[in-house]
């Protein structure tokens, strides 16, 4: 059976997302190792002075390009592919999606100019009253609005498909992709309100001051579900594509996969206070309620762990795998896409452990803003997500361009070097954080660093060096593939795992949108409403802006 064909124009459109994403990763990832080297005492920043004024300008470039631009562009491209391919229909209104994409591109350029000019050295959290040039906030707004517009294009496409196919179970990949885009629309309301009602008018001189506590609250309304916006596309691949690639396995449970996605939609926003446990202006009772909901959102990740591992085990057994663990060796490790995603998944176990610990209410007192935190999110967004996206690109780029993946062995080596480099880097960051080292500090220069941190800071540098090599390998493979003269003979097969149980048997309530959407909005109003009402009622726009870099 021939697979559904995307038009050349659609492939180009999805490919443009990949292009921007990878360019952002290329520039952003240059600065990651520089930070790590600085920690080990090898400070290259003085040599960069003509272009990059400080460690913090580099850190801003790294955070904005890697955590915001690389992820958002890759995700919007991947979701667009998933929706059209799985629904076997073109976008309902391709012009709308194109408008969204170009808004995002203009936004990135608008934000990049002040960042590169050292006029927006505010890191990717841009906490006021650090005050960036207005173009930075305009750029961020355009990126968010552009991603909304692209999301609307996906919703319209899904609705059109539903109209054409009433009473049919939606394909999991399309369902989950639309849900991810929907989650993003709901949660970005926080940062949209933050920028439009405070930061932008303030940076334009229309208002004198801002309320930093309220700004943080808006920010983290978006900030935690942002994590799920990053993760869910990787989950889609792990659930529904990776088992097929790893050894022709099937998805262990279609209904539980859908159920876990619904729980993510409902629970990922109303728990933002777990990033604000030690903020002075949020009442502890609400922090506690959010912490309990955080324990709740860990549950669908536990379900995901089971379903994904079981689907992979199914693949491993099919390939003749035996024993309690030996089947893992039978998975298709020689395929770089598989190797990258399996290694990403392994480190995500540890990312999950660190995340649960951070989010455990008062346990956060031990960890808040220590190096443990970047140690943690380099396992999640920088490995579970990023290494999975790299793995996806190892089949997606050949699929889109019709060019053969250049040197798959190098690509396998890329996955392993990322894995090893990240273990060394992240382990050291977690431990030095537990010893008290703060995050966001050039620790190579800080006056208070005790001798006991030094061996760990050295390991941070070593990990960074290995990651630098891995990043260079990835970019080489991507570039060489994009320019590869060797074409694929047939269109690359898109890996789609069937479900073990016919999805038609999945209960209807797992394929109905309205109750879940109303439920998630109601929960947000319930656990954010009273605090936000109080904060807005007592708003104090007393903080003028500062440019302290």
């Amino acid at each position, binding site marked *: 059976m021939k697979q559904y064909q995307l038009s050349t124009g659609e492939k180009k459109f999805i490919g443009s997302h990949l292009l921007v994403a990878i360019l952002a990763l290329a520039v952003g990832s240059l600065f990651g190792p520089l930070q790590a080297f600085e920690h080990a005492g090898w400070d290259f920043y003085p040599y960069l002075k003509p272009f990059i004024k400080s460690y913090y300008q580099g850190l801003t470039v790294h955070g904005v390009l890697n955590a915001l631009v690389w992820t958002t562009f890759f995700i919007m491209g991947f979701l667009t592919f998933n929706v059209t391919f799985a629904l076997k229909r073109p976008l309902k209104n391709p012009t709308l999606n194109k408008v969204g994409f170009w808004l995002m591109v203009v936004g990135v350029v608008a934000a990049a100019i002040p960042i590169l000019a050292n006029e927006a050295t505010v890191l990717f959290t841009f906490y006021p009253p650090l005050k960036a040039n207005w173009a930075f906030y305009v750029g961020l707004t355009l990126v968010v609005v552009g991603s909304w517009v692209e999301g609307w294009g996906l919703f319209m496409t899904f609705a059109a498909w539903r109209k054409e196919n009433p009473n049919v179970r939606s394909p999991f990949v399309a369902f989950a992709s639309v849900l991810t885009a929907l989650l993003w629309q709901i949660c970005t309301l926080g940062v949209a309100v933050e920028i439009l009602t405070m930061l932008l008018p303030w940076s334009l001189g229309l208002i004198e001051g801002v309320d930093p506590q309220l700004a943080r609250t808006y920010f983290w309304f978006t900030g935690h579900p942002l994590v799920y916006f990053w993760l869910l596309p990787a989950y889609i691949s792990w659930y529904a594509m990776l088992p097929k690639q790893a050894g022709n396995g099937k998805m262990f449970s279609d209904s539980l996969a859908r159920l876990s996605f619904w729980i993510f939609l409902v629970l990922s926003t109303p728990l933002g206070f777990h990033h604000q446990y030690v903020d002075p202006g949020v009442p502890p009772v609400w922090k506690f309620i959010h912490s309990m909901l955080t324990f709740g959102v860990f549950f669908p990740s536990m379900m995901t*762990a089971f379903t994904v*591992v079981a689907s992979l085990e199914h693949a491993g*057994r099919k390939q003749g795998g035996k024993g309690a*663990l030996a089947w893992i060796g039978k998975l298709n490790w020689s395929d770089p896409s598989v190797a990258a995603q399996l290694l990403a998944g392994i480190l995500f176990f540890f990312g*999950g452990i660190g995340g649960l610990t951070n989010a455990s209410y008062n*346990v956060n007192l031990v960890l808040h803003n220590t190096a443990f935190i970047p140690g943690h999110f380099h396992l999640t967004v920088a490995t579970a997500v990023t290494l999975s996206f790299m793995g996806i690109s190892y089949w997606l780029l050949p699929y889109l361009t019709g060019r053969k993946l250049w040197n798959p062995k190098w690509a396998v080596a890329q996955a392993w070097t990322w894995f090893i480099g990240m273990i060394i880097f992240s382990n050291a960051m977690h431990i030095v954080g537990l010893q008290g080292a703060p995050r966001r500090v050039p620790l190579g220069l800080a006056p208070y660093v005790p001798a006991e941190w030094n061996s760990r800071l050295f390991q941070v540098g070593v990990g960074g060096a290995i990651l630098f090599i891995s990043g260079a390998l990835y970019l080489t493979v991507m570039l060489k593939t994009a320019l590869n003269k060797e074409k694929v003979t047939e269109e690359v097969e898109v890996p789609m795992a069937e479900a073990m149980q*016919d999805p038609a048997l999945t209960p209807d309530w797992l394929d109905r949108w309205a109750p879940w959407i109303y439920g998630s909005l109601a929960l947000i109003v319930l656990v954010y409403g009273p605090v936000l009402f109080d904060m807005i009622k007592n708003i104090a726009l007393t903080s003028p802006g500062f440019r302290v870099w």
Partner: protein
Amino acid sequence: MAKKDKDDDDEFRPTGTIAVLTIFVITLIAIWATIYWILVGRGGTL
């Protein structure tokens, strides 16, 4: 649909998954508890 497949899959018991997840859970509890004890050892904040 695919009756034959279903029979094969019905016999699939994810024992290896239980093995993997057991290792995961032991690690999770160990790390979480270690940090929790650090917190408790440092004492109250009120």
